[in-house]
């Protein structure tokens, strides 16, 4: 019986190739648009994650802090906020020297003016502006602490960028989902109308809705999956072109590809079910 449904789906495709190809081209264009946005989102998220990983809080220590007090503070910070690493005045000067690079300029400075510090790599849940601001305020209350820096404005902008990307993904996702629903819905309606006589005869012979609907739904599913694969192929070509011409871009990871295909298939099935439930009711006696 399953083979019969597949054969019927193929028969329908062969008998109305114009309708099927129009639907597939529309779906491929829609899914490609979705794919481009996913690719941008994925790469932007990767970049943000990379930068975000380096978001750390620098805690400058007072000169009079003893080694015991410093170790106690490290333990406390590690417990509350994340891994803390000590940077002595000498290490700080060494790093500064390497960054500046010009010996004449460095000789102009009489003595090392840099304070010792603790670099705190914050826990993932604290890598956002409000949490970091709160943490900085709390840490600055410790008596051993001279000052706390964490690049508040920069962190806030990074968070905004991430939020914008998430909102954009949602908007494009919803728009593409609606477009897929609309294309599949109308294609199935047109296909059923084109095969109205056949559907009507089946209804008169006592065919259940499931029996009539399954080949249509399978056809829609196959068209959507083929369109999704074509869109992925085009997207990969675009990505390769971008890599050669402009910047390094990474393609979608397997989990994203699986979600993309699965989502498209799910939408196709939902649209087919919706269209067939309405269309079959008006198709026959």
């Amino acid at each position, binding site marked *: *019986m399953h083979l*019969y449904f597949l054969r019927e789906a193929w028969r329908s495709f062969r008998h109305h190739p114009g309708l099927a190809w129009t639907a597939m081209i529309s779906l491929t264009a829609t899914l490609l648009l979705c794919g481009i946005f996913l690719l941008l989102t994925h790469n932007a998220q990767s970049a943000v994650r990379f930068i975000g990983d380096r978001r750390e809080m620098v805690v400058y220590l007072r000169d009079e802090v003893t080694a015991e007090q410093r170790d106690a503070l490290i333990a406390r910070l590690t417990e509350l906020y994340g891994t803390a690493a000590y940077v002595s005045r000498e290490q700080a000067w060494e790093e500064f020297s390497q960054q500046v690079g010009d010996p004449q300029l460095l000789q102009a400075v009489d003595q090392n003016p840099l304070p010792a510090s603790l670099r705190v790599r914050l826990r993932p849940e604290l890598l956002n502006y409000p949490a970091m601001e709160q943490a900085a305020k709390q840490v600055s209350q410790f008596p051993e602490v001279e000052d706390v820096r964490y690049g508040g404005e920069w962190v806030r902008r990074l968070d905004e960028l991430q939020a914008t990307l998430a909102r954009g993904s949602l908007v494009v996702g919803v728009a593409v989902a609606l477009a897929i629903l609309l294309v599949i819905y109308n294609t199935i309606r047109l296909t059923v109308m084109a095969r109205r006589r056949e559907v009507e*005869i089946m209804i*008169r*012979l006592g065919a259940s*809705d499931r*029996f009539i609907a399954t080949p249509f739904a399978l056809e829609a599913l196959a068209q959507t999956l083929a369109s999704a694969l074509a869109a992925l192929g085009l997207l990969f070509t675009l990505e390769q072109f971008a890599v050669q011409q402009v910047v390094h871009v990474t393609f979608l990871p397997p989990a994203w590809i699986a979600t993309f295909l699965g989502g498209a298939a799910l939408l196709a099935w939902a649209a087919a079910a919706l269209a067939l439930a309405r269309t079959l009711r008006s198709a026959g*006696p």
Partner: protein
Amino acid sequence: MITFEHVSRRYRDRLALDSVSWHMSEGECVVFAGPSGAGKTTLLRLITHEIAPTSGTVTVGTFRGARLPRAKRALLRRTLGIIYEDFRLLNDRTVFENVALAVRITGHFADTEVVPRTLYALEEAGLQQKQAAYPSELSAGEKQRAAIARAIVNRPAVVLADEPTGALEPASAKEIIALLRRIHDEGAALVMVTTRLDVAEALGGRILRLDDGRLAADAAPAPSPYAPRELGPGPPAAAPAPGA
């Protein structure tokens, strides 16, 4: 098996059936004869639940009610074999595929069972040689045979025939009537509607006359076994109902 109790059916301002009551038992043969517009096709459509009665009750087997839900209507139709005047074959499928479709629709049979059942029905209808042909390659008589094969392939308890000889020339009509008679002799109940009294008489069985939506007369039930008359080549006989 089939019972109509004071069934009326109205299309806007026209009364197609007017308080019609009749009953048929298992294995019986009933022919409704009457002129065009008498309500014959309406009666068949009420049996298949394509339409609902305006008033009254239609009972077909265990299915009873004014308007059955969609799934039950499908179930009811799967228990019937229906033959149409215009054959209603699928033109993009072979004769075999048309007949096999009715088997698949029941959902009861595996692919391996579909083929022997279909071949048996084609053999019954005398179409085994044409199983690979498309409807467009068949004569009108052969098309009707294919439709009959499709109607009997699931061994229905009742076969409904809506003017099965209407589109056929006399020789083919004669063959189709003989085929229907054989199907009935093998045990299926048969309900046929026709405008031609000679066709009705040729099939044999109980003849009910419909005129202007009313059951005008119930011809005396033919003795069993039926003694069908020879089908003549005459024009359609739309006999007016006495007293109608």
